[in-house]
């Protein structure tokens, strides 16, 4: 597995899972563009990437902003070259204050859909012409096991992730004839900045977790839900991304793969 000479873009690549993906692709030789709204963290991750693969860049991108998405394409092409690998990882779990509500507001629904689904479509549409022109490209979308079946909390988040799986299936079919593959990964439970907030929400919202701190909620969920009885790591997700974008997976498209210790089998 070797991505030497290839150009990768990772949205939400500044922290958490996205950061691990960027570092993994760099480790295999790719130049990586970090596209994130968090400029400071993005710059730090880009510096780490540079140490690994020698080439990285940052473009402050809000995936919900079409103009920014087009700017990202220009900046990537100029600084690193035409894109080979796109990882749509940026995601949120609600609008401001969602962790301490026991219901979803209209803003939760709108903003979550805006970032997790429409943002993904924006970025994909922006990079698609380059990939079509080359008749090759690899796209991986980060969904979630929350998108696999209904859950008693965060309906707006689960629905947005189900939409990500569906989007992946449809766009995979559209792009297949151009030798472009698109697959989704459904991570299980990972201790990242996002899950710290989810832990707050569950403690606030669900009687079973009342009074627990986020990490305690997280550990309790793992004990209850994960057959392998261990948390998943950003590294796990990054390894699976690396598989999907490698030559080894050239004939895999339109799939969603759960990386979740057996939480949800499919």
């Amino acid at each position, binding site marked *: 597995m070797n991505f030497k000479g290839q150009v990768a873009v990772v949205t939400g690549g500044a922290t958490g899972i996205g950061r691990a993906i960027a570092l993994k692709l760099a480790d295999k030789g790719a130049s990586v563009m970090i596209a994130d709204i968090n400029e400071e963290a993005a710059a730090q991750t880009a510096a780490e990437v540079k140490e690994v693969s020698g080439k990285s860049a940052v473009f402050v991108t809000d995936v919900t902003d079409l103009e920014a998405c087009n700017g990202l394409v220009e900046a990537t092409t100029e600084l690193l070259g035409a894109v080979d690998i796109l990882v749509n990882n940026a995601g949120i779990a609600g609008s401001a204050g969602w962790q301490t509500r026991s219901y979803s507001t209209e803003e939760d629904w709108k903003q979550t859909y805006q970032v997790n689904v429409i943002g993904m479509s924006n970025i994909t549409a922006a990079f698609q012409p380059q990939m079509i022109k080359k008749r090759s490209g690899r796209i991986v979308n980060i969904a979630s096991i929350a998108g696999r079946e209904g859950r008693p909390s965060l309906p707006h988040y689960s629905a947005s992730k189900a939409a990500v799986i569906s989007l992946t299936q449809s766009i995979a079919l559209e792009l297949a004839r151009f030798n472009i593959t698109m697959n989704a990964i459904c991570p299980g439970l990972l201790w990242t900045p996002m899950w710290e907030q989810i832990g707050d929400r569950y403690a606030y919202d669900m009687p079973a977790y009342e009074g627990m701190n986020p990490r305690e909620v997280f550990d309790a969920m793992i004990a209850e839900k994960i*057959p*392998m009885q261990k948390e998943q790591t950003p590294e796990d997700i990054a390894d699976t991304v690396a*598989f999907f974008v490698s030559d080894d997976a050239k*004939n895999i498209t*339109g799939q969603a793969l759960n990386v979740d*210790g*057996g939480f949800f089998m*499919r």
Partner: protein
Amino acid sequence: MDFEDKTAIVTGGAKGIGRGIALELARRGSNVVIADLDEEAAREVVAEIKSGGSQSYYCETDVTQQWSTDDMIEVTIEEFGHVDVLVNNAGVGGASGFTTRKTPSVEDWQATFDVNVYGIVNGTQSVESYMVERGYGKIVNIASVAGRGGRPGFATYAASKAAAINVSQAWAFKLAPHGINVNTVCPGLIWTPLWESIAERRKSTGQPSTGLTPRQIFQQTVSELVPLGREQTADDVGNAVAFLASDRASSITGQALNVDGGIRQN
């Protein structure tokens, strides 16, 4: 290399997809035991692996017999000292003569389930207590996209493959607490002796493809069904198996991954 000092067993490894899996694992450093009924073809694969610099061994095995899969594990441990990976790949399209029967016979149902389902169960049962005791093990089962949904025409085979996916989930659950991963690969359309016999059956049972050679029937099916527009190869399946059997996929269990150019989506 992922499989340095590891030992893998591939049932049905003498031909077609099993051969591809065996070669891919060997290329990544594994010792490979070819467990098959067909000694002559198996010996050729063994020689091929050895000439590539890895160790290989033929073990005459009938996966429909528990005593035989027990023997397979014993012989492997004697030969190489340990078993790390079991790939349950052996499969059939029916009892002998199935290619001439439009309606499957009782024997076809029996043979398909004996090899495609009990074959997986037998192999798994022979190795599970050993893997549990050792605290390490990877099992990858080969089902088929045919197992992803009912279709007219080949219900024996499709039903057995659906059962294979289900059986894999059962053992994934059971073995998860011991850190043992059980996953399934669902191949799409791969030109092997098995597919040749499926094409023969279509010809001899008067399905629309009469007049074409088996290979032409295969190619026609590929162009009708595969969004990526090309056949899949035994190497593709081998690469997916190699990923799922590696420590890079240690958080993935109970999953079924389609390697099918996008024929079916999961």
